């Protein structure tokens, strides 16, 4: 058995920087699962891998860029989305995926998130939501449910959290889905759909954070959290995003909520400027090296 193990390799390894494995994530952390689902989606969508760029910010999920064998960028806290905007606008042929955490994308990166969604910038945002700032030791974040206990809310959280699908839809995202790490095949399918479409696609994946969120709130191990997802999640495709609040250990409504067509930033720019400037407008396409 062992000899054959050495000869055969885990197919996911061809997408990973194997010289950096094992990764830094904790036992029971769901980020590795989301990465495998993402790799599966890349493989199934048969997308040209050379053109895929991964941009991530700071945090546990921010480390994803360092493990994927694609053009990957580990940028500053909260600025993954404008960085990705620059990449995409400079070379529209790139397929840009922003893979980052809830604190990075929604708190410090909140302003960039809402504007990129408003502009329907063509990119895929995979927001791994573990309800806290894990890398720095488990602080309260913009998605932490009420009553949860974290290091900067030691008496329990009294701040209202964001309802991410509602926020994304309100800002103008054209594809909004929420899944948990347990819904791995559905995460893969959502990522596949997002990769094959154009526009601002937002996929929230609720993942277990064992060492911090679960431990501080006495929620058990990764298995306990997955069981909670299993027992409490309900798929409601197309649900009204206003009803998708998450209370502490409460019901999780998952599914694909928004999927609509709308011109992307570049589409709108090209169409409008062609109409106004006529022949003088240089249609914005790929910039070749001079």
């Amino acid at each position, binding site marked *: 058995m062992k000899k054959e193990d050495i000869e055969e390799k885990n197919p996911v390894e061809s997408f990973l920087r194997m010289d950096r494995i094992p990764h830094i994530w904790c036992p029971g952390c769901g980020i590795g699962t989301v990465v495998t689902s993402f790799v599966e989606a890349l493989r199934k969508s048969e997308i040209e891998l050379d*053109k895929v760029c991964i941009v991530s910010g700071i945090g546990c999920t921010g480390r994803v860029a*360092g493990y994927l064998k694609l053009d990957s960028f*580990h940028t500053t806290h909260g600025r993954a989305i404008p960085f990705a905007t*620059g990449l995409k606008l*400079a*070379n529209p042929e790139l397929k840009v995926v922003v893979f980052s955490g809830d604190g990075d994308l929604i708190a410090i990166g909140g302003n960039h998130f809402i504007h990129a969604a408003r502009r329907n910038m063509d990119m895929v945002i995979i927001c791994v939501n573990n309800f806290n700032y894990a890398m720095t030791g488990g602080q309260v974040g913009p998605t932490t449910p009420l009553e949860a206990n974290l290091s900067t809310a030691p008496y329990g959280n009294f701040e209202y959290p964001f309802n991410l699908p509602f926020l994304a839809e309100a800002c103008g995202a054209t594809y909004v889905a929420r899944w948990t790490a347990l819904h791995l095949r559905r995460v893969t399918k959502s990522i596949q759909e997002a990769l094959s479409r154009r526009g601002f696609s937002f996929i929230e994946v609720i993942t277990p954070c064992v060492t911090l969120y679960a431990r501080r709130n006495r929620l058990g191990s990764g298995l306990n959290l997955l069981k909670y997802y299993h027992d409490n999640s309900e798929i409601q495709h197309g649900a009204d995003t206003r009803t998708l609040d998450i209370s502490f250990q409460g019901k999780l409504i998952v599914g694909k909520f928004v999927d609509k067509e709308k011109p992307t930033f570049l589409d709108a720019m090209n169409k409008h400027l062609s109409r106004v400037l006529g022949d003088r407008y240089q249609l914005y396409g790929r910039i070749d090296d001079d």
Partner: protein
Amino acid sequence: MKKVKADPKGVLTGVHYLDGDFAIAEGALAAGCRFFAGYPITPSTEVAERFAERIPLVGGVFIQMEDELGSIAAVIGASWAGVKAMTVTSGPGFSLMMENIGLAAMMEVPCVIANVQRGGPSTGLPTLTGQGDMMQVRWGSHGDYEIIALSPDSPQECFDLTIEAFNLSEIYRVPVFIMTDECVGHMHEKVVIPPPDEIEIIERKWYEGPKDKYLPYKPDKDMVPFMVKAGDGYRFHTTGLTHDERGYPIINAECQNVLVPRLVDKIRKNANKIIKIEEEETDTAEIVVISYGITSRVAVKAVQKARKEGIKVGTIRLITVWPFPDERIKELAKKIKAYVVPEINYGQIVFEVERCAEGHASVIGVPHCGGWVHDPDDIFNAIKEASK
């Protein structure tokens, strides 16, 4: 270093009457800049406005981002996609951009940032001139890194130095700053834009070896690594964390002590090739006036008046303010009596001059907190005092 001719699409050849801000935009387009991300802030807004008007006609893209932090992040992203990119701002926006300027320095990304300075600190004097960000441009972001900063004194120089800035940023893979001020930015003067084949553009240092052997941060002989762009199949990784030659984060002291000295030394050790200063009558001088930007034009009147009174005054105009011309200032200090340093701030570059003079010559600053240019008589009085 590969030199090419400018792309004719972006060059508005001819004799124009432009203000400094517009000249910066035209210089960038002539240099091949095809991506601009910015945020409106007085007195730099006109640069963004000019870009918004001109860049769709030359095959580039303009985006007004939601804030300055987004602007500089987008510029860095665009540069990684292989396009020359630029942003502009003023004092408050400059402070906002600092973290990502550090990222650009760490990731070694060529980009150009123009700061049309105004009175500070904080919101200060939005519509009036200042030169109060000269230390910030050098030390603004945390940690050790080194940048290049140029200081034009006229709209014509705004045009010329912007092209120079793009070239320097490509050679050294470093963010380069154009430190003008509201006076030069809003001043209308004659700007001559030459034909495209008279404009020299330096190409980016592209890697041309086998894909699987590519190491993103392996330095070349000049301490600058070769660059690639996203989408070409190199599958590189780059990070703001301390990294090794592969671009992978290595969190230990050894790696830090290899990477950071190189980031600084690639500018410091090449300083002789970068520094540009304009000297006048320094060989026979007793007093030397060191100035930059608009102040150097004001100083001309003071210097003329002093010379009429028989004082032997020379001038040094700093075209590159950073890296600072340490050696020249030190060498000259031994021969002269005093340096007079007028600047539109409460004393910033004067401390650099003091440091380099090493006590051999006295250093007299002529500060002005901003809001207007100096009264030439103030500079003249300082020269006269120094010559006693």
